[in-house]
């Protein structure tokens, strides 16, 4: 994992659920991550897929990813090029899914200082998110969890553990 990333902001509100991130009607019919990416945020922000650029950062309010356990709600964003998600808080299954897919997630209030299109920088080592309106701090992830992200996600992590 890079220790520092800079990206353009896509800003969203509170309680964004996994149905609007990746509609349920596709969950058992689409298995290719690239195809999943074509439906990212379809029912929340129909313009997202056409305009997202690699390394863009989602900045949101509380309880990002509530609802279903569907991991496609992480995969579709990662595959669409999203470099990180910064939210005031995350729903717990989404939080685990992001770690397991090695999509960097940051819990802090940067939503208070960033607007759509702003450039922000996440410094994972320092635990800071720098926005045009100030710097927000976040606590580091537990060592066990960080190791999974650094290994590239849960599958590479388990392979390493099992000596594969």
């Amino acid at each position: 994992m890079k220790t520092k990333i800079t990206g353009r902001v896509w800003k969203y509100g509170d309680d964004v659920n996994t149905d609007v991130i990746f509609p349920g009607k596709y969950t058992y019919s689409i298995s290719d991550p690239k195809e999943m990416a074509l439906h990212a945020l379809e029912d929340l922000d129909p313009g997202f897929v056409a305009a997202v650029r690699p390394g863009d950062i989602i900045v949101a309010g509380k309880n990002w990813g509530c609802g279903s356990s569907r991991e496609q709600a992480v995969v579709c964003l990662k595959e669409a090029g999203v470099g990180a998600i910064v939210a005031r808080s995350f729903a717990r299954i989404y939080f685990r899914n992001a770690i397991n897919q090695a999509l960097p997630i940051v819990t802090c209030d940067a939503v208070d200082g960033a607007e759509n299109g702003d450039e922000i920088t996440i410094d994972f080592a320092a635990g800071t998110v720098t926005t045009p309106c100030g710097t927000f701090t976040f606590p580091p992830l537990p060592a066990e969890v960080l190791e999974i992200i650094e290994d590239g996600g849960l599958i590479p992590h388990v392979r390493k553990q099992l000596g594969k």
Partner: protein
Amino acid sequence: MGKTFAEKVLAQKAGLKQTTAGQIVTVKPDRLLTHDNTSAIAATFRKIGVARVADPSMNVIVLDHVTPAADETYATSHQATRAFVAEQGISAFYDIGEGICHQVLPEKGHAWPGAVIVGSDSHTPTAGAFGAFAAGIGRTEAAAVMATGEIWLRVPESLRVQLREMLPSRVSAKDVSLYLIGLLRADGADYCSVEFAGEAISAMSVGERMTLTNMSAEMGAKNAVVEPDEKTFAWLAGRVSQPFTPVFADADAAYTRIIELDASTLAPQVACPHTVDNVAPVTEVAGKRVDQVVIGTCTNGRLEDLRVAAEILRGKHIAQGVRLLVLPASRENLQAALAEGVITDLIAAGATLLNPGCGPCLGAHQGCMAPGETTLSTSNRNFKGRMGSKDATIYLGSPATAAATALTGVITDPREV
């Protein structure tokens, strides 16, 4: 200081003397529940590079989400799941028609007091109605559990809901859940273990308790639990073959919050579009016209729910222009409702009967909505686009509210029919 249910059960499973909220432990779950997503999980499992699942007896697999297969893509996915089951020697496999995984899991003896269950579905906490610790996980994580037989869990903080007095007539567990979610909001129990207790809970049937634990996912809970009692043991008798020791929270356990409610003051509740925490008493939304009513799902598709609906609709007919879909949560519930005449009454009243399964709840088949349409459903989610068109709206309510609404064609207070 005493310990909560979650702290005690996870300590026991992790082989530790005690645990405290916030601690990370590694446990070997008793059961891993997966459904139609098993084919995708199996594909991820193969990437890990082990040939066999760690413990075939841990796996419980139920095809329920899009059953029978709606098209060739779903059929191919089901086929891959059946092949995986055969290849891995998994005996607890329940094919289409058996019911919804959260209902079939306990019916077939895979949930018991003190068990630790993880499942690749957000409504896995439902099994907490039997005194189990049950939490939802993602697909990749389920593949890792298959390969290693283990999972890391953070011991959750706990929240206790104390429900004293008795619920009034036509006010049910679903109304309690909706009221609580409106109070706590969608993240009010995020990462938390929710313990339900009190007179009104003791008075509930096991099925009604399952509604409470099921809906706890909608306030962000990691798991929810009802302390097992004689009703639980009677329900489990003949289903669970192994010995178990119930785990109870200590009286002086530490809770982040204790919520006390007087059940006798509650009214029927409705969740309005497009979030489950957008809750109002039914009296405030009464009169809203609906196109479709859904009675069923893992939240409210059990015999007691179908009975309530039949009691309201017996000898009457649903309003013109309304479609009523009824889908029992399992074959067992369908058979019981058939034997009692409940299904006959509902069909005579104009209901369309669907096979046990998830049906229209996730918007993949069997009752999706067109733009501009409105459904009142007994299911657990009303998110935008959940049941078909993103320009359709979903209200959530109890089986009694749903039946009353089907009767009149507008959202109706069940105490008035």
